[in-house]
């Protein structure tokens, strides 16, 4: 269904619609929301990584002047141990509630225990120190392999491993085991001329969005609850809060404010139900803001993992078999992204014999949350490093070995699905011919590495309404919060249909009472699925406008066509009217025109990326500097190329941070010792070169303009690409992330 034609708006680079608001400081983010009579909330968090809560006494806090209310787990409705589908997949309700406020046990340092509303934030903070909590401290379990030991301390007495439909007898920290198997791996390895097997360890890393979580709630006497917040999905907030508070969704309105980054971390709710509980208790609107430390310690990072990858290949470079063992830390409650990791690990390649085992393991760390292609970067660090080693051993160029094995349309992924039209080969070819790859690279301690990555992308539900204005412009109403310029990439798709400039579309992101259901801004789905809904809504407008022109000219609708922004009659009468002029005549032809589009598309189409990186390793300090970076990616069709490049560059740089610096550093008591931006060292602009983003366009047949999601896959290749570059520079294979100076010095035998 992809249209093969030149576009007028799609593929251009207009100024984003919300741009002026965002460069003048006028755009209102969650924390900027103000309302009369506002109280301020703060959350008390567990100082222990693992402890039984024996008692909570809030009386001293309640007595502090200025304190208006204190809430704990006792204020939550008793949660059932049942599974609810909450937009981001199945969630166990008891775990969801226990993550809002610890009830029986605190399962990580930073686990919320109580919250206070007061007349100002300082009083609320002071009151938190007056809440007396009696803990029985328990030994923490802090690492996935330790947690899997049979004698490891248990986080949950009721978790028993489910494996291929069976549930174990004894409780365990291993919540589940999954397996994908294709062909005959044993036979495949027997056919190999070379087999390489390596272990990999990755640390816990945070999304690192600059805006902390925030929520303001107001609870009317009639039960009407309004929540103003920054979130990746207003409807998902509505669903989660409804379940947690056992309050009907029809009585909850979520108003999405501007959002200061998310990357997957602003889907789960943390303080939104807390603000609602405090508002209910005090009868006043309550604003709850997290501190940066709260964000690190109390929200979901992406998991640390232990990974083992084994691959076999013939002398000619054909992979004959691949095996992976993935053990992911879920954090305090089950639900790590080991599933997606298992789906993605070998997805760039067409391999006949594959076995992948995945384990979801609870540990005393914050419950993990999605982070950009969740699970896939950990997995690719292993598989893309092993493939590099095989290429090197066989004397085959690393891009060439990828071409030899590249998956294409019709090939089967190890977890089942058949690939639709994909653009992996095109990204490798583009990397091969890029001047970066052909540039000289031979200086001492300089190295070049490449790696590829896959992310499947998702579709899900989106709704768009278009109201036609008398001056030939349209107002576009949508439910996808705009994290990176999607107002424009969505508006442009409607503009293309109606043949109007991008600037003639006024996009608005509205609350949950004002637009149809729309799933999260996540899964690289927004430009794809909400853009698709905008396309459908614009088609609806076009149909209705054709009806109006027909009415005006007293001809049959089949005698009206729309081309180049003009409606014209065919078969006889020679009438013409521009879109703009017809917009001015809607009153006389039947009243306003409103178009709508709703979708739940299945053809998201996978995205592939291939990255090239040059590094230099400082032999004395162990510091790795990135000198040059090129990221090639199949975007299907780039609606607004500047913001596609932005996604690629931003994802690559998050990957560089993950590769070289970022990790949660824990002490033996399970306390994160680097819970600030100073010590959790994300890349600054001084750490980086320009990032050359190369867009390849292999149109996705599942979208009218060929769009593929672009947001997530760019974070998949960087860790392996940098590890491969470090090997090229100093001849040492790094298998643990981050590849920080101390790890490099250890690997080089310097310390």
């Amino acid at each position, binding site marked *: 269904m992809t249209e093969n034609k030149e576009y007028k708006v799609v593929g251009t680079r207009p100024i984003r619609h919300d741009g002026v608001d965002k460069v003048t400081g006028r755009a209102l*983010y969650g924390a900027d929301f103000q309302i009369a009579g506002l109280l301020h909330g703060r959350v008390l968090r567990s100082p222990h990584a693992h402890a039984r809560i024996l008692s909570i006494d809030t009386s001293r806090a309640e007595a502090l002047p200025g304190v208006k209310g204190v809430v704990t787990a006792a204020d939550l409705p008793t949660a059932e141990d049942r599974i609810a589908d909450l937009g981001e997949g199945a969630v166990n309700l008891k775990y969801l509630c226990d993550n809002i406020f610890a009830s029986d046990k605190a399962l990580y340092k930073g686990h919320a225990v109580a919250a206070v509303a007061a007349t100002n934030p300082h009083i609320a903070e002071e009151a938190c120190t007056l809440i007396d909590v009696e803990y029985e401290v328990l030994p923490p379990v802090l690492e996935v392999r330790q947690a899997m030991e049979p004698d490891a301390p248990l986080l949950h007495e009721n978790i028993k491993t489910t494996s291929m439909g069976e549930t174990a007898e004894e409780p365990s920290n291993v919540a589940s085991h999954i397996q994908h198997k294709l062909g005959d791996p044993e036979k495949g390895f027997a056919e190999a001329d070379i087999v390489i097997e390596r272990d990999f360890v990755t640390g816990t890393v945070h999304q690192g969005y600059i805006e902390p979580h925030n929520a303001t709630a107001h609870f009317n006497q009639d039960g009407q609850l309004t929540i103003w917040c920054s979130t990746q999905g207003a409807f998902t907030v509505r669903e989660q809060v409804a379940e947690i508070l056992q309050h009907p969704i029809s009585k909850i309105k979520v108003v999405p404010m501007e959002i200061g980054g998310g990357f997957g971390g602003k889907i789960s709710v943390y303080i939104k139900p807390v603000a609602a509980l405090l508002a209910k208790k005090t009868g006043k609107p309550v604003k709850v803001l997290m*501190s940066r430390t709260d964000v690190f310690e109390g929200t979901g990072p992406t998991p640390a993992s232990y990974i083992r990858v084994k691959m076999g290949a013939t002398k000619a470079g054909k992979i004959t078999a691949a095996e992976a063992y993935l053990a992911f830390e879920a954090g305090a409650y089950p639900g790590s992204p080991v599933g997606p990791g298992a789906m993605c690990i070998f997805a760039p390649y067409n391999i006949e014999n594959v076995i992948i085992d995945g384990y979801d393991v609870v540990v005393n760390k914050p419950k993990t949350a999605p982070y950009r292609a969740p699970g896939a970067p950990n997995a690719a660090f292993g598989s893309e490093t092993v493939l590099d080693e095989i290429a090197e051993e066989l004397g085959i160029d690393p891009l060439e070995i990828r071409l030899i094995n590249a998956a294409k349309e019709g090939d089967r992924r190890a977890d089942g699905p058949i690939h639709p039209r994909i653009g992996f080969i095109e990204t490798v070819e583009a990397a091969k011919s890029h001047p970066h790859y052909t540039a000289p690279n031979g200086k001492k301690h300089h190295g070049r590495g490449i790696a590829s990555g896959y992310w499947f992308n998702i579709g899900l539900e989106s709704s768009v309404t278009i109201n036609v204005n008398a001056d030939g412009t349209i107002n576009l109403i949508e439910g996808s919060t705009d994290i990176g310029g999607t107002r424009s990439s969505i508006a442009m798709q409607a503009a293309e249909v109606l043949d109007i400039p991008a600037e003639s579309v006024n996009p608005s992101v509205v609350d949950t009472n004002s637009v149809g259901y729309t799933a999260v801004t996540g899964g690289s789905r927004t430009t794809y699925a909400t853009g698709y809904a905008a396309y459908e809504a614009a088609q609806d407008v076009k149909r209705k406008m054709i009806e109006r022109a027909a009415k005006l000219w007293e001809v049959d609708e089949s005698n009206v066509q729309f081309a180049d922004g003009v409606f014209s009659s065919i078969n006889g009468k020679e009438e013409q009217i521009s879109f703009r002029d017809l917009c001015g005549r809607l009153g006389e032809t039947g009243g306003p025109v409103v178009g709508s589009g709703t979708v739940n598309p299945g053809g998201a189409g996978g995205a592939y990326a291939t990255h090239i990186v040059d590094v230099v390793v400082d032999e004395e300090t162990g510091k790795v500097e990135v000198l040059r970076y090129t990221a090639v990616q199949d975007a299907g069709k780039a609606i607004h190329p500047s913001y596609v490049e932005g996604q690629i560059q931003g994802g690559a740089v998050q990957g560089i941070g993950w590769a070289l610096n970022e990790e949660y550093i824990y002490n033996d008591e399970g306390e994160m010792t680097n819970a600030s931006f100073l010590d959790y060292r994300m890349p600054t602009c001084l750490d980086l070169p320009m990032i050359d983003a190369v867009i390849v366009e292999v149109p996705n047949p599942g979208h009218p303009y060929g769009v593929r999601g672009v947001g997530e896959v760019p974070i998949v290749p960087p860790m392996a690409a940098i590890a491969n570059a470090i090997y090229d520079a100093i001849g040492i294979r790094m298998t643990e992330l981050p590849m920080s100076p101390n790890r490099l010095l250890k690997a080089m035998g310097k310390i």
Partner: protein
Amino acid sequence: MARKSHVQTTINGETVEFLCESRQSLLEVLRDELHLTGAKEGCNNGNCGACSVILDGRLVNSCLVLGVETEGKSVETIEGVAEPDKLHPIQDAFLENAALQCGICTPGFIMSTKALLDQNPNPTEHEIRYWLAGNLCRCTGYDKIVRAVQDAAESM
């Protein structure tokens, strides 16, 4: 409740008076007392630069300055950068280069850029990166931000 002090200062060229507790930071005063919410709180301890403002010509993190310290001083915030009828060239350059995604760090980057270009109108790429290293952006990878600053310097 802590006693409040009376402070008179200049903000974006206008004389402003406010009451604040001595423990309140300039960031808190700007946001909560004066409703100038363009300066953002990302960390509240001087590591992210999202609250950058210019105080008597010097770039500061407003979370590390107390409100009472601004007595008799002059503060420039993001709200004072544009002209009534047109954007500042730095703002235009950020828009034209698509140098923002979520936009939460953007006011801080624009204030930092303004402070840089006020004292060094023709910075090299390295000087730009060195100067802006106190501002964190998690969305863009900085490429388009650096290019926007280069373009702004050229157009001013």
